[in-house]
Structures are given as C-alpha cells and as structure tokens.
C-alpha cells in the first residue's frame, strides 16, 4: 500500500494547532501564542518556535548587556548562573562569551522559505497582489456591523457565498477564466489546487504553512471561528479549508494574469529540497548565552524580592519593629489576584490596621453567563476555558442607554454625510474642544460601572430547576451556591475569624479610545468587569440556607457577618458597592467608616500610580492627582489610562502575612492560600 505523502486533513489540523488563537476583540483572552510548544521544556520550546516562525523570544543580546551595565543584572547572580550551568572551571570563558563575544544574531526563520521563490524566480510578489484584496473580502464576510452593506449571501458558508456573488453579479473576483472555472469545479480540494500551484506533494505542507503564516492573524481568527462560531454575535460559517481554497484560487488567478503561460508549478523551477519545518533545532552557543542572561536577569529580580520577604519576616519576629496583630478585625476584603490590586490592598491595610485583605481569582468561584436587561446576548463571566451551565439575568433596570450618532456609520452616506457636515460637524468640533480641556464620561467610553446596573436586580437563586433558557439553568440552587462559597473560602483559607463586614471587590477598567480595553478588565471574567460576580458571591454568602449548610461542613460564619459586593475601577480609581440595603444597622454604620478607608486608599493608590504617568505631576496635592487619574480614564487622547499587565512579574501563592506591608510595586499576582488547612492538597 502506498502511503500518502500529503494528508490534507492532518496538515489542516497541524495548522490550526500552530496558528495563534485569535478571537475577535469582543471577548478578551490572554493568550499564549506559543501554546503549541507548551509540552516542551521552556528554553527548547521558545528557541524552536523562534527558529520555525521567526518569533522574538528573548530580549536582544545588547539589551541584556545594557541591563548588566546599569546593574539590573547582578554580577554575583550572573556568575552563579554560569557556574550552575557550565561548571566552576568554565566561569571565565563563559563570562567572556556572555559579556563580550560577538554573535550573529540574525534568525533565519524556516517558515516562508519555499514561497519566497515566486519572487526570486518570477519577480512576482504574490502577497502584495493578493493580501489587500483577500483581507477586504474576509473582513467584509465576517463584518459584524461596521460596514453599511452586508456581504451578499452572508448567511451561506464563506466559499458558497463567494460562488453566489461570482454567479450573481456582472463582475468577478478573478481576472482569468481559469480561476473562475476552478471555483465551480465539483468537490474542489486543497490538494487539487496545490497540484496546480506547487506540483509535488512533498512540498505541500511547507507551502501551506508558508502561505498561512504570511497572515497568521487572519488565519488564526478563521481557525478559531471555525472551532467556536459563537465567538461572533452575528453568525458566520467559515473554515480554514475555505480560506485556503480561496487564497489558492487567487494565487492561480494572479500567476495566470501576470505571467500567462510562462509559469510552471513552483517545485518544477526550484532546486531547493522540501524541508521539515518541525525538525529539531540545533542548540547553539548563542542560545546558551541567552539562557544564561535570561536566568541571571530573572534571578537578579527574584533575589531582591526574596530579600524583601526575608527582611519582612525578620522584622515581624522582632517585637520592637513588628506591629501587634489585632484580634478584632474591622473588616475583611477579598480582591482579585491581579497585580493591579497589590497596591490598593497594601494601602487599605496600612490605613486600617485592623483590616485584612485576601486574594482570589476575580470571578470569585462563581461561573455563569450574564444577560444585562434588554441585551440580546449573554456575556460569559468566568475564565475562558470554563463553560458555565448557569445564566444570571438582570431585571428592573430603569436607566436607558445613550446613543451617539458620531460613532456609527450613519454619517457616512451621501445625503446623511451632507447634512451631518452642516450640523454634527460643528458639534463634533465643540465636543473635541470639550473633551480635550474637560474630559467626562460619554456613551462611547467603555465604562466599567456600566457593565451592570447598580439599581438592577439579578436572578441569582434558582428555585425551580426547570427554569432554563437555551440549555442554561437560570440561577444557582442552594446546594450549588454552598459548593461555590465553600470552595472559595477553603481555597483562600478563610474559615474562621470572620470580621463583621467582608467586602468582595471585583475589578474592571474604564478607558476611552482603546479597542483593546478588554485587556484591562478582569481576565478571570473573560475580559470583563467582575461586578456581577462579586454581587452574586456576596448574595450567596449572605444566604441563610447557605450559611446553614456551610456550618454543617465546618465553616461557621457568625450571623452578624455580612458580605458586600463591590467593584474597583482600576483605571479611574473609583469604587462602587452593591446591595447595601441588606446590611444590618451596625454594619451599615461601620460601612460608612470603611468607605472612608477605601477612599483614602484610592487616593494613595492614585498617587502611587501617578509616578508612572508623564501627564500627571506626582508631587501635586493628592486630591488633584486623584482627579487627574479619573480624567485620564475618560480622555480620548489617552489610549493607556492604565498600564494593564505590562508590569506583572511574580505570582505569590500563600498566606498574606508573607507579603503584608511589602512594596511589590504592583508587579505581583497574590493568591491567598493556607497550606495548613489543606494537608491533602485538595483545594
């Protein structure tokens, strides 16, 4: 039996595996673009990925050397790393390599080599000829509402839709009859077309990788939408197979058009052997040098952090410097583990010495879809890999959503554009002046607090398990609520010493002119603010029946203890609290005091953040800084009202006492965990 050299199905599968998982910006997902290499050892994986796809995986050598010069890479640490990796005897020689030796750093990537021959042999730049058009067609087909006209027959699959337009119009996608004829050929496969374009099967896989990785973003998006069509609200049926067929047809069309009969399948005019893209990557001396630098860089930093932690624990053991731990707690507050909450937690604890803070992923263990009132769709509010079975609906919202015609395509048509020029045109000028000199919130700004209406109500409790919508159970039953509350409290190790008030603080981020604003929201809530989650969790933990069942499993929350949901806007540095009407009299009073604490903490937080912002003078009076921080989050000219996860370097899992009071410069993920309560490691 003859083995197929080219297995179309298999190669498509491989492609999807290696392409970046590019979802539409609607859901923001922090995504590892090297996920296909994650089963390998770290350095092997990154250098392999770099060789194949040309990724830049470390700092350039010169940057490492500069860091060493300015002292951010410690000499002692560097020597230690070299000794560990290369042995004591080789220290001098490797140090010489690392610091002085010249290397050819040019990284000749494997992908793209085969297809580059079109230019070499035929002087034809296929990418330049095809890509602009291809992207416009793809964008037109997948469009969700920017375009004024819909893609003709956009309800069919991508390729069927193309065929429809080709048949039902007076013009054509193609310039030549050959491509057009191929389009309508029955059971047209990628293999058929590759035979025309490339020729021999040995080259097919390499060619497809070259082709698709020349626009990996688009291909990655198509592959993702094929697997998860629900990532788009207006549904589209597209597949990588369709994209490749269309692209190959365009290639044939352009080759035919530019070269006429003067071209042959690519492999007939080259001498180059097909290469296996994924064959082992040789370890070079340069790789070794980069590994040493990277390790030395990381350890220089860890060394400082660990020294800080060590110092902290010493000073805590010393009765003269340590502050007495208060037995009575004023309140406790749970925050997301996000590094941006590191600073506010520090400030809260500093202002109210009797308070205590905890860290847990910001969906607070409750996973569900959320439907805002009048919304036609559900928002997923939990980490990306989780698929919730629950739905929480908002109702009783009185506020109306505002519209803004300048953000729509309504002014882009002839007549409307004419009228707009004489009306909205001048209004736009005024608004621009206003926004530059006195920025304020508007419907077009993505507002963290608008994700859920503060006054609205939520269907949290499920009283009848037949209450379902589109396969989702509406709300949680008592048992399901108990499981989730217990899970979270166990996880962070909060099982006793409950304060009278426990805040559940989610976070989100407002920003004005940034299509990637989802990156600033809560990653544990699929790039959305976590306000609903905090409210839901507080409701569950306050539920009498839930409390009863928690007591049965050993978590005894006193009756006077109450949970309050809240949202921290990490860009504007503002907080909002939910469902305060459930508080008892004592708690309601002390809440007012705690709000003061939070306010002061927010001031300090704003000041701490302002050090990094050129637009704000950090030596100003603190209330002015706070105002400036708020203005930043609603200014059109400020696409980076905050710096997101750019500074993240650490993840600390453990008791807060390890890091309490330590200045970690908003760089650490802090997840509370108490190993003593978890001898089996089951949490």
């Amino acid at each position: 039996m003859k083995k197929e050299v080219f297995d179309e199905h298999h190669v498509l599968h491989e492609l999807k595996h290696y392409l970046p998982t590019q979802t539409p910006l609607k859901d923001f997902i922090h995504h590892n673009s090297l996920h296909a290499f994650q089963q390998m050892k770290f350095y092997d994986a990154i250098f392999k990925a770099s060789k194949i796809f040309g990724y830049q995986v470390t700092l350039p050598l010169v940057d490492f050397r500069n860091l060493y010069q300015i002292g951010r890479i410690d000499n002692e640490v560097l020597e230690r790393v070299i000794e560990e990796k290369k042995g004591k005897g080789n220290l001098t020689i490797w140090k010489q390599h690392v610091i002085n030796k010249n290397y050819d750093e040019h990284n000749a990537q494997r992908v793209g080599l085969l297809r580059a021959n079109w230019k070499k042999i035929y002087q034809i730049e296929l990418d330049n000829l095809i890509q602009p058009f291809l992207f416009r067609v793809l964008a037109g087909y997948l469009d969700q509402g920017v375009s004024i006209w819909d893609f003709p027959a956009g309800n069919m699959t991508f390729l069927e839709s193309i065929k429809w337009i080709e048949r039902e119009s007076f013009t054509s996608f193609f310039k030549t009859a050959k491509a057009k004829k191929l389009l309508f050929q029955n059971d047209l496969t990628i293999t058929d077309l590759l035979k025309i374009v490339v020729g021999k099967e040995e080259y097919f896989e390499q060619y497809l990788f070259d082709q698709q990785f020349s626009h990996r973003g688009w291909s990655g998006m198509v592959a993702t939408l094929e697997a998860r069509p629900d990532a788009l609200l207006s549904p589209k049926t597209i597949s990588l197979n369709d994209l490749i067929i269309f692209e190959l047809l365009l290639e044939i069309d352009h080759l035919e058009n530019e070269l006429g009969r003067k071209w042959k399948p690519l492999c007939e005019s080259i001498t180059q052997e097909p290469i296996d893209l994924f064959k082992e990557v040789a370890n070079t001396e340069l790789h070794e040098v980069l590994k040493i630098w990277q390790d030395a860089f990381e350890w220089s930093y860890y060394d400082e952090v660990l020294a800080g932690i060590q110092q902290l624990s010493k000073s805590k053991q010393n009765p003269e410097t340590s502050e007495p731990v208060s037995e009575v707690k004023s309140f406790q507050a749970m925050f997301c583990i996000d590094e941006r909450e590191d600073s506010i937690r520090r400030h809260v604890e500093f202002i109210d010495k009797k308070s205590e803070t905890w860290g847990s992923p910001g969906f607070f263990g409750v996973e569900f879809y959320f439907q805002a009132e009048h919304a036609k769709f559900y928002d997923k509010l939990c980490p990306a890999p989780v698929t919730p079975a629950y739905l929480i609906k908002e109702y009783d919202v009185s506020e109306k959503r505002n519209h803004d015609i300048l953000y729509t395509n309504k002014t882009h048509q002839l007549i409307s554009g004419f009228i707009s020029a004489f009306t909205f045109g001048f209004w736009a000028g005024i608004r621009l002046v206003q926004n530059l000199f006195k920025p304020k919130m508007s419907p077009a700004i993505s507002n963290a607090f608008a994700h859920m209406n503060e006054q609205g109500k939520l269907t949290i409790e499920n009283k009848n398990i037949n209450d379902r919508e589109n396969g989702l159970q509406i709300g949680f039953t008592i048992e399901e609520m108990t499981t989730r509350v217990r899970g979270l409290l166990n996880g962070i190790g909060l099982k006793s010493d409950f304060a009278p008030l426990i805040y559940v603080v989610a976070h989100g981020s407002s920003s004005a002119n940034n299509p990637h604003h989802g990156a600033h929201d809560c990653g544990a809530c699929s790039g959305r603010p976590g306000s609903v989650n905090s409210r839901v969790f507080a409701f569950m933990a306050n539920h009498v029946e839930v409390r009863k069942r928690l007591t049965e499993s050993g978590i005894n929350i006193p009756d006077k203890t109450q949970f309050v949901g809240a949202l921290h806007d990490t860009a504007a540095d503002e907080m909002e609290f939910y469902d305060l009407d459930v508080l008892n009299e004592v708690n309601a009073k002390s809440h007012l005091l705690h709000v003061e604490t939070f306010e002061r903490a927010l001031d300090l937080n704003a000041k701490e953040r302002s050090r990094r912002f050129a637009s704000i003078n950090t030596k100003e009076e603190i209330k002015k800084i706070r105002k400036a921080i708020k203005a930043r989050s609603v200014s059109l000219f400020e696409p980076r009202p905050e710096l997101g996860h750019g500074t993240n370097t650490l993840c600390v899992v453990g008791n807060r006492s390890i890091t309490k009071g330590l200045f970690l410069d908003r760089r650490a993920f802090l997840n509370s965990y108490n190993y003593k309560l978890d001898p089996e490691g089951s949490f």
Partner: protein
Amino acid sequence: MEQLLQLFVFIPLLGFVLSLLFANRQEKLISGVAYTIVGLQLAGLSVFIVSWLLHGASILNLKHFVFYKEDTIEIFLDFYFDKSTAMFAFVGALITFLVLIFSKYYLHRDEGYKRFFNTVLLFFFGYNVAVFAGNFETLFIGWEFLGITSFLLIAFYRDRYLPVKNALKTISLYRLGDICLLLSLWMSHHLWHENITFLQLEDVGLVNSHINEHYGFALFTITMLVISATIKSAQFPFSSWLPRAMEGPTTSSAVFYGSLSVHLGVFLLLRTHSYWESVEVMKVGIIVIGAATTIIASLIANVQATVKTQIAYASIAQIGLMFIEVALGWHNLVLVHFAGNAFLRTYQLLVSPSVLGYLIHDQVFNYSPKKYDTKRTFAGKLRNTFYLLGIKEWNMDALLKKALWNPFKRVGKMFYFMSSNAALIVLSIVYIAGLVIFSFYETLPPQLDETLHLLFSLISMLLILIAFVERKNAIRAWGIIILSQFYCVLAIALLNDTYEYGEIALYASGLIIAAIVGSYALRKLLIAERHVSLDDFYGHIYHHPKLAFVFLLACFAFVSLPFTPSFIGIDLMFTHIDKEEYLLITMTTINFLVLELAVLRIYARLFLGPHKKQTHPIAYRSS
C-alpha cells in the same frame, strides 16, 4: 494690514525651527512649543479676521520677497487674503491646535515623538504658505512641502512594510499633482509674459480677453490646475491613495487626510475660480469629476469593513459635492461645507479606536439577525456587482498602476542596457562633448542644435526611467540620476540662447552639492553594510539614523525643495522652454515627475521598512 499677512506664514516656520532644538525625551518642551506657536497663530488669526471683517473684508495682497529678477522674469513671494483664505487658515489653525494637544498625550513615549511634532509643524507651515499664497509660485512652494511632509508622516512607522510602501504610493500621486501645477505655472508664464498673481486673475475683463486670445493654451493651463486639485482631494480616479495614506499615527491622519490636506484641492479651485469660470467646458468637467466621485466613493464607503477607510471614502464623497458647489459658484456654501466636513471627519478619525467598543455594546442590545436576500433578481445582481466593485475600489489602484506607472517602468526596463558600465562611460563622454559643443554655441548650425537638444533631453529622460527600475545597486542608480539631471540642464541650455550661465549655475549649484552629499552617504552605507541593493526594503535607518537623515536632505535638495537655490533654478529652467516645444516639455516633465520618485525610492528601500537584520523585534509585513 497687508504687512501682517507674512506673520501667519512666519509664525509656523518659527515653530518648526524651534521644535528642532529639543531632544526626543523633552516631550513637554516639544509639544509645548508646538501648541503654543499654533495657539498663537490661532489667536492672532482670530483677531486679524475680526478686524478685517470690520474693515470691510476687502481682498488683501502683499508682494513680498523677490527671489530673482531679470527683464521678463520675476519670481517673488506673494501673499493674499480673502474669505477663502480666512476660512481655510482659521479651520486649519484650530484643527491643528486641537490635534497637537491631543497628540501631546497620545504619542507619549513614542520613539518618533519629536519627529512627529517637527513634521506636523512643517506641514502646518506648508499649509499656510499654500493658503496665503498670492501667486502660483508661492502656492507651489506650499504644495511641495505638503507632499514631502505627507510622505514623512505616512511612513512615520518607518520600520514597517506597509506604511513605507503606501507612503511611496501617495507621494507618487502627489508628485503628479505637483508637476501638473508646475506645468500650469510654466504655461501661464508664457501666456501672461509675467508671473501672474491671483489678484490680477480677479480682473474679469483681463482674464476673458486673455482666454479668448489663447483658448487652447489657457485650456491646457486650467486642465493642469484641475488635475492637480483632483489628485490633492482624492477625487475620481485618484481616490485610492487616501485610505492607504492612513498608515501614520491616528492624529496625523486626522489632520491630513480627514480635514486639511484633502480639502486643498477644493481650495485650489476656489482660488483660481475666476480663471476657469468663464470656460464652460471646464465647469462641466469639474462637475462631472465631482459627481462621479460622489457616487462612486459613496458606493465604496458602503462596503468598507474598516472604520477609517469608511470615513475616508465618506469624506471623499463630500468633497466631490464641494467640487460641484464650487463649479456652480456657491462659494459661501462650499466654505461652510468644508469647515463642517473637516471637523466631523477629524473627530471621527480621532475617536475611531472607540467605535469598535461602542458598536459591540450596541450590537449586544440592539441586534436583530440580518436578513439575506438570496432571490435571483436583476436588482440583486446589480447590488452584488456594486458590492464587489466597492471591495475592489473600482480597480482604481490597479488602473493607475497600469496606466500611469507601468509604461514608465517598461521603458526603463527596455533601455536598461544603458546602465552598464560601458554605456555609462560612453554617455559621460558624450556629455563632455555636449559641453564642448555648448561652449562653441555661436558657431553651430541651428539644425544640429535642434536635434541635439532633443537627443540630450531624451537621454536624460531614459536615464531617469532606468534609475527608477534599477534593483541592484543604489550607488549606480544615484549616479544615473545625477547624469540624467546634467543632461537635462544641457538640453535646455542648448536650445535657448537666453539661458544664462548664471541661471544654469543657480540650478547646478544645488544639484552638485546634493549629488556629492548623497554619494557620500551611500558610500558610507556601503562600507558599513557591504552592499546597497534596492531589491527590497532594508531598514538601515535602524543602525544609521544620521546617515539616513543626511541622505534624505540630499534627496530633498535634489528634487529642488524650496531650501536650495535649485528651486529657483528649476523655475527658470522651465521658463526657458517655449510653449511650442511639445517634445521637450513632455520629456522634461516626465523627467521631473520620475526624479522625485526615483530618489525617494532609493531612500525608502535602503533606509526604511523592516530591518533586514532580524536581531530585534520587527512588525509583521501585513501590519
């Protein structure tokens, strides 16, 4: 009051010069100078306009500075002020001021922070020169600066592939517009026997008798003006550059292509209306261009799935309407239409990054499933046709490439053999022989003279076309360009008895310095990088920013940007080509058209684009 006009040109120039003095890190100073200067301009202009209105709003004219003067030729700066100037200058200053404040924060920590503000201020200077211009020469100076600054801002993200490529595409069309303006300037020199000012054009009687006298030539002049306006305002069939020009920072796209730059075609028509108004066929022509653009651009806007492209085409459609309005004489309407459209599109471009967030939100609340009509009807078929044509931008881009640039390239390739060493040596010897002939000028038989100048002009044109297609060696391309320019000067000198040594020297002096400086820069690059090939973008600016800057200056000097004496030289040179010299003017025009593209192509290919030595992060080609 006239004397004040020059202020509004010199304030921006002062701003540009001041902004050069700081280092990239001094962000506050750079942006501070920029918006203080533009704010000053805005305030001064507002006061000036108010007092001008109170004084009866009469047309102002200031003959400013005479560059060059001999019997019939006088080249001078001239400033002019009427309601069009008032509106364009005011809207320009206001929008630039707002956008500069916007950019102060928006571009924070950008590697090209200073470069951005320098270029925008230079643009603002060019804009004001154009808007306040009182004659064609002054307008042309402004026009040239606009072209160059556009190139620099589109290629702002200079280590990426597409911005650089699209910057070249835009500048080639802009250059075509410049050349058309130069031709109308040339022709009007010959027709009026003087350098006509816009004030003189207001004299209806004079203009009419003039047009009756030289109908054909006047028609040529006006056609060139209209083409220039059509290109600048991205009208049909020159629309496709506009969306491609939006590669620079959002803020500069907003100023240039949303509002100011793109409306300058309308301004040119307004400024010259008294010249073409009595020529019915031209009026009809402008209306046809405007109407065709309006319809086609609207159809294209309908199918654009990217926000900025949609805004670009929507704006083009409105400018098409403005063309019609100008042609119909509704000047006040045009001015208001311009201001409204400029503010609207600037705002929309500035907020375009939030459109996505807004629409997703809107979709969540107001979505209704789309209804697709898949019945087979004629109307449906028509709609599909318009859809596909819109996606293809009515093939405008391909058409221009095919009709405009490919013929040049084909000729260049056909005569490529002339770039061999042997051929170049022969050509150099012929050139020296030509010089000798020139010095014995008096004794030559006139027939020989006739043939020789055409031959030299042809050689000059062919050489520049060859340089345009040279792919291997940048130094060779540069040498060919130099040789070509010297041939060009000789050709015109041979033809014309009145072309004096002094005038030749004026042009050649700038040329020679530029040639030497450019060669020096290329030589140094060759030594450092071992090869200077032109077959791809090499991005050498990453390692050689200073060399790149020096070479860029040499390029600008070579194309006679108005900071070298060559600028006056080129003007004079054209004056010496008689209006009946069809062949010579055609060849010289092609020469000057391709010249700028050839030198900027060398600059872009060597210094811009993704750096070839991939030792640091680079952006993907499609980004």
